[in-house]
Every structure is written in C-alpha cells, then in structure tokens.
C-alpha cells in the first residue's frame, strides 16, 4: 500500500491527519533544534529501550515532515549508555554540555533516571521520562510521562482483590532487586495492610537482573498458595528475566484461573519472545495497550508501521508515553516561542494531547500526566484483551500516601 509512497510523504500525510496547529509548513531560518536520545541500545535493557529510540526518531521525522518546530528543523543526537548506570550520567552530561541539546528523551530503569537526575538539575536540562515508575520523585527538570503507582500498581492490586479479578486474599510480590520493585512493593505492602491483608499473607522475593532459574521461586509460590486462600502474584520483574519466569509458570502448570499473575513491566514487546499459549489469562497493568480500539491508536500504529517497515513489530505503553510526551513538548515549544528550558517548562503545564490510549492526557504542575488505568489479559496471539479500564484519566500521586516520610510532600 505504501510502496509507492516515500516514508516521509506517508508520515506527512499522517501528520495532516493528526492536525497540529501552530506549526508552520516550511523551514524558516535558524539552527536546527537538537533532540537528545538517551536509551540503551546494548546490554540487558536493549530489549526494551531500542524501540523507544526508534519512537523518538519516528517522531522527529514526523515533525520535520510537517515543517519542524518554530520553523526550525529537528535534529536527533543519539547516544548509547549501554545499560550501564554510571554511563547514563556521563552520556547525559555529554548531551547537555557538548552537544547542547534542547531536550532529551530517555531512560527506562529508575536506577538510570536517578543516575542522570543530578546532571539534568545541575545543567538545567529537560528530560522526558516515558516509563511507569515507583514515584517519590519530582524534579523541575524532568517530565514524567509514564504512570505513578496510583495510576498502575494500586488499581491493579485492587482489581485482583475484586470480584472480576478472583478475590485474591494472599499476594506474592516478586521483583527484580533494585529501587523500582522495592519501592513499589513497599507501597503495595502498606496498601494491602490498609485493606486488611496481614504480613503473613504477603510473600516478597527479589532476584538479580537477568535471573533465569525460577524453579525454586515458582514452587515456593505454589506452596504459599497451599494455605487455603485465593493467591495472586504481583510481578515487578524487569527486563528479559520475564521470559524464563513465564516459561516456568507455564511448565509448572500455574494457570491464570488458579494463581493469576499481574505484571507491571511486561508489555507487547516483552511477550514477543515467548510462547504465550500457556499464559492466557495472566495480566498486565498499563495505561495503554496495542489492542485499544479507536482512531488515535490506529493512527499511532499506522505511523509506527510506516516508520519501522516491519509488520511484526508491536507498539507498547512506554512508546505511547514517548509519543505523548514528544507532542506535548512540541506544543509547549510552539506556545513558548523558544526552546529554552525555563519558558518551555512553564508552557508545559496544562498541555493536553489526545493520546493513542483514547483519552485526553494533561500535564499537571507536579510534572506528571493524568492517565487512564487499563488492565489486560494475555491472549494467545501475544496481545492483551482489556478487561478493566477507568472511566476517566486519573491524576498522578507521585508522592504516595503509603510512604509515611514523603506523604506530607503531596499537594
């Protein structure tokens, strides 16, 4: 279908469909606007982050196809921090001090974000962080376009405890051993306690990055479930350790009807390497799924297909958050009339974008988006069937009321 079109022309057509006001169609004079891309292209996180680099490049091509921003062309500066957390800080400094980028899109793991945070604050840079995370953070130099715990983790556990989710009374918290799972599980434990689930009914286990031998843990979960109460697994396992984990669940015959497992870091991209037949019914909580119906998502998926030229590649939640953040930044720059960080930051507040998830998302003064919560069940084809979604977008509580020492910082 698109064979006769060039990629650029097709993207321009899509751009027209998405109708961006305030963008003039031709380049005026002026140096190009530099956009930093800080995602791991090698190492253990490459599985997840490579697609985000592609998403940013796609957005830059799309923006240029309709005349750039403020009549200036966008120019990507791609660096590879190689899943190496200290290297993230070095590369961030390089982007800001040497390449002098106007904005950066990057990071996946919380540990990498924590590592670049001081650099962005010191040099007054602007970072868009597109992944759901544990909260307890708010920097004037970062816009968080992924979910905070109240937009993902807590609604998901509430669903498991509700009638549709199987009325779980015992929860196994399994995670990778770093800041995001530990903080999320701390919040969840406090939340579960507040709902009358005692510590005796909560199991918590951590594994290293890239863990592959899940036999012991999965059989301990089975034993944990043998106490006569409905049990569910809440997984904050990150990266490619998920593949052997799900394989072990399938091999040990743990069906979603008996012990459902809800994951916070497993999306379409991560499922691409797994045989999903034994996993039908296991859950994931996100703010977007590729299977969401509606025109905004159809346009987004079409745009991705045209750019990546591979029908098998999927879209996922962090890609959607990258897309939404990028468009908000473009709108804010157009509104501010400049790319300098301070005016753009002011212009960001209150920006709205019709996101591919089918809801209008708004950037609030706490640097977080309002987002809908969706819970999907894995299907045989590796896609998710949305079984629950909130009627409206929910504002983020980045300071969780369940972490006592930070609760007072809300507001």
């Amino acid at each position, binding site marked *: 279908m698109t064979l006769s079109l060039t990629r650029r022309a097709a993207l321009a057509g899509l751009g027209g469909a998405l109708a961006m006001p305030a963008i003039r169609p031709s380049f005026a004079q002026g140096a190009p606007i530099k956009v930093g891309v800080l995602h791991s292209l090698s190492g253990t996180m*490459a599985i997840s982050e490579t697609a985000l680099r592609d998403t940013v490049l796609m957005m830059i091509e799309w923006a240029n196809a309709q005349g750039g921003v403020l009549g200036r062309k966008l120019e990507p500066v791609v660096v590879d921090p190689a899943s190496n957390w200290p290297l993230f800080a070095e590369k961030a400094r390089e982007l800001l001090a040497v390449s002098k980028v106007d904005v950066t899109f990057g990071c996946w793991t919380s540990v990498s974000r924590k590592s670049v945070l001081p650099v962005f604050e010191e040099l007054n840079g602007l970072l868009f962080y597109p992944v759901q995370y544990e909260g307890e953070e708010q920097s004037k130099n970062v816009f968080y376009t992924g979910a905070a715990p109240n937009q993902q983790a807590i609604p998901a556990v509430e669903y498991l405890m509700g009638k549709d989710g199987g009325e779980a009374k015992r929860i196994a918290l399994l995670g990778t051993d770093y800041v995001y799972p530990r903080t999320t599980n701390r919040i969840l434990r406090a939340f579960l306690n507040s709902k009358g689930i005692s510590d005796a009914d909560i199991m918590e286990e*951590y594994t290293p990055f890239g863990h592959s031998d899940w036999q012991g843990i999965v059989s*301990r979960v089975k*034993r944990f479930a043998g*106490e006569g109460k409905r049990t569910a697994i809440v997984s904050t396992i990150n990266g*490619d350790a998920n*593949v052997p984990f799900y394989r072990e669940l399938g091999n040990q015959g743990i069906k979603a*009807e008996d012990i459902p497992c809800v994951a916070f870091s497993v999306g379409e991209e991560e499922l691409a390497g797994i045989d999903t037949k034994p996993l039908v019914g296991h859950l994931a909580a996100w703010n977007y799924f590729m299977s969401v119906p509606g025109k905004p998502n159809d346009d987004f998926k079409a745009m991705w297909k045209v750019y990546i030229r591979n029908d098998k590649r999927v879209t996922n939640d962090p890609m959607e958050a990258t897309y939404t953040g990028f468009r908000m930044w473009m709108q804010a720059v157009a509104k501010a009339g400049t790319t300098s960080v301070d005016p753009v930051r002011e212009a960001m507040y209150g920006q709205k974008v019709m996101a591919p998830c089918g809801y209008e998302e708004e950037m609030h003064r706490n640097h977080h988006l309002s987002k809908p919560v969706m819970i999907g069940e894995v299907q045989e084809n590796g896609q998710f*069937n949305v079984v629950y979604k909130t009627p409206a977008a929910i504002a983020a509580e980045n300071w969780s009321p369940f972490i006592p020492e930070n609760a007072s910082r809300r507001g």
Partner: protein
Amino acid sequence: MNRILLVLMFLLAVVLPAAAQDSYLDALPGLAGGFGSQAEAVERLGASGDPRALPLLRALSEGQLRKRGTTILLPNGSDAATGQPADATDAETVRINNRVRSALRGALGRLQLVSISSDERFAAANSVFRSRSAENIPALEAAISRESVPRVRERQELALAASRLVAPEDAVKRQGIAILGGATSEDSRALLLEARATNPSLAGEIDAAVASIDSRLIYKRAAETLFQGLSLGSVLLLAALGLAITFGVMGVINMAHGEFVMLGAYTTFVVQEACRGIPWLLPWSLPLSVPAAFLVAGLAGAALERGLIRHLYGRPLETLLMTFGVGMILQQAVRLAFGAQNREVLSPAWMQGTLSLPGGILITQNRLWVIVFSLLVLGLALAAIRLTRFGLEMRAVVQNRRTAATMGIRTGRVDALTFAFGSGMAGMAGVALSQIDNVSPNLGTGYIIDSFMVVVFGGVGSLMGTLVGAMGLGVLNKVIEPWAGAVLAKVAVLVIIMLFIQRRPRGLFALKGRAAEA
C-alpha cells in the same frame, strides 16, 4: 370442551420441550453481557443439561463465539438460540476474562465427565476438583461407578472428596476430609485449610488430615529441591564443560566463552527457522541443532585460536583482555544481525509440561532433558579425550609439549583442535540454554562468571571435578535459596567458594597440566 382439551394438549406439546430448553435459552443472552453475567450464564448453561451447551461452551473457551447485540453467533455463523443462519455484519468476538474462564472450566468439566476420551475425563475431573460444588456429587458418583481407567478414577475420587467438603452435612464432609488427607498435594491441603475457616466444628479432623499431608510433603519437597539443584547444576556443567577444556586443559583464559554459548543458541534459532518450511522436520529441529551448534561454535573457536590466541600464549593478561574484546564484538555483531530483541526458540512438545512421579513429585520436562543432555555431553567429552587419537595427542601436548612435538605431533594443529572442541561444547550448551533462558545477544555474559567458578572449584583440568563441582554448587544454591532468597543464595555460594579456595587452591580434584605447572 374437546377444543379446549386440544388446545391444552397442543400447548403442552409445545411448552414441555420448551421448558427443558428454557434454561438454555434464558441463559444465552447473558453471554453477551459483562464478565459477571457471563460467568453466571456459563454456570447455568453447564447445569442445563442441554446437548447444545457443550459445543457452545467449548466455542466460548476457544474464543470462537461472536455476538451481535444480544444475539450469540456460533462459529458456523448461525444463531445459537435458533440454530438458523443469522446476519453477522459487525459481529464482534465474545471476550472472556479469568472469572468467566474459571466458571467455564467448572461447567465444561461437569459436562465432560462422561466424555469418551480418557484424557478429557481426566482433565474434567481436575476441573471439577477445582470448581467443587455440592451439586456435582451425584454426577461424580455416577462417573466413578462407570470409570475403568485407574488414573482417571483416582482424580475423580479426589474431585468427589473436594465437592463433599462443601456439602451441607457434616457426615459427608468427613468422608471428603478422609480422602483428601490421603493425597500428597498442595491443592488438597489448600482446600482443607479453606474448609477449616468455615467449619470450626471439624477443625480437629481437618488439622489431622493436614498434618498427614504435611508429613508426606516433606519428602516431596526434599526430592523437588534435589531435582532443582541437579537441574541448576546441569546448566552450570554444560556452561563450564567447554571452559574446562579451553581453560582447564589448555590454560587459555577465554572471556569470549559465553559468546560461543550464545552462538550455539542462535544456531538453534536459525536451524529452527530453516525447519519451519518442512512440518515433519520441525519437532526435530532441536536434535539437529546440536551438531550444527557444535560446528558453528567450533569453527568460530578455531578461527579465534589460529587468528589471535596463538600469538598470545603465555601472556594470560593480554589473552584475557583480547578475548573480552572479541566477546563484545561477537555480541554486537549478533545484535546487528538478529536485532536486540530476544528470539523465540520453540520447545518441542516432548519437552513441555511436567512429569508426575510417584509420591506426587513434579518434575518439569525441559529441565529433565537438560540434565540428560548435560550428562551426554560430559560422556562425549570423556570419550573423545580417553578413547580417540585426538584425545591422546591432546593429553600428550598438555603433559609435555616439546616431547610431544619430537614424537611427531603437530602441536599447533592440536592446540587449534582442542580449542575448537572446547568452543564446540560451549555451542552445544547454547542449544540447551535456548530452552531455559533468553536467546539474546547477552545470553553468554550471565554464564561466564559461573563457568569459571565451577571450573576453579572443581579443580582446573579435571572433567570429573567439573561435574562434581557443578552439581555440588547447584544443589548448595537450591538448599540455601528458600531461606536466604535468590540474591543472597548467590552471594553465600560465592563466599563459600572463596573460603574453599583459600583452603584448597587447586579445587576439589587437582590435576597436573600446563595450567597446574604454570
């Protein structure tokens, strides 16, 4: 009068069969509603006894039902209520969730208790065991009286006991408790404990039954821990065997060893893709991958040895740095060729699922095959070294290079072959690891440290030491894990090895070789 009678008779004729169908027709529209009403409809359909319910529920569980408004459409396009062809424009698939799926399992299980296939009856008994309800008791009793296959009958009796446990009368419940107490499974234990919360009057009997299950579960868990330890050990053994030759025998510190494992895993993927076009060959792609992976990794090893390593013999630090660099080049090359995404290697059917041993011990098939495979590879290595001409020359060169050379052995060629042999074994390990780990460019990095650990612990240069070391570390790890967690267990094992190496620097089985003399 007659006319009235006729009308009455006519009405009866129409209404009576209709009454039997009522529950079917009444329940049907519920399938088009929300998950709650779907689950309720499924339960009513399962209880209706209508012959149309079974195919309908099957189609629902397979995701083949469609709906248009409140009309349910069968896979063949006809209206499920009337059986007539219906308009299917804009019909959408009926989607279900876990709640509906679990209701479906119970309903289908009940309907399939009388299936012709014994596998289906077995699955049905398991489903009814989980969905347990007092209404199932007569159906189960009838099924048991007709059942001739022992393993199905056993499951049916357990299912009956589970259903009796939720019956209203205490006497019936006691029958259930007695049978469940005789099983050795966590499921039965969970059911008993669940019943304990609602039946304080039966607490004593339930506790006794649970204690009896627990006393048997101890052995079962010990056996499972042992198996898991051996399984982890076999993975370590596979990863370390090649290294035991290149490092243990030749004394080359090869940091690219993990990447040869990774090459083996990618070879498995390529062979599988090549077999895709030929359906009968596909289940055999894994055995076919073994020689292919050996060749690919072996050739890569030979090239590395001839091209680079031989210039650095006797300079371990340079060798270490150089092979480390080669490893990174290989990783990035594979990432460029195959992409950063993990590649999916399918498991053949004979490697999936669990094997149930007597005593309720569950063993995952893929892990069992990996253990068998690791022992086969070890046997192959031993045979090659002990029984072949190449093995003899290799041992000669290791013991005394110059004397071997004077005997007419081309030592350079033997070095290359030995290194290729060790690398090829790493490639074979990659075939096995493709079944239990991710086929990604950084597959090997996770194993390189463990491999060195096993070789040093077992004794540099000794294959038997590698076997004992790998299995010992595997079991040790799994024994510590339940108390300490996965992260601390790894740390603890590392500390134990460090202490051990302090006492015995040459490992469990110290051998003489070029490395030992150095």
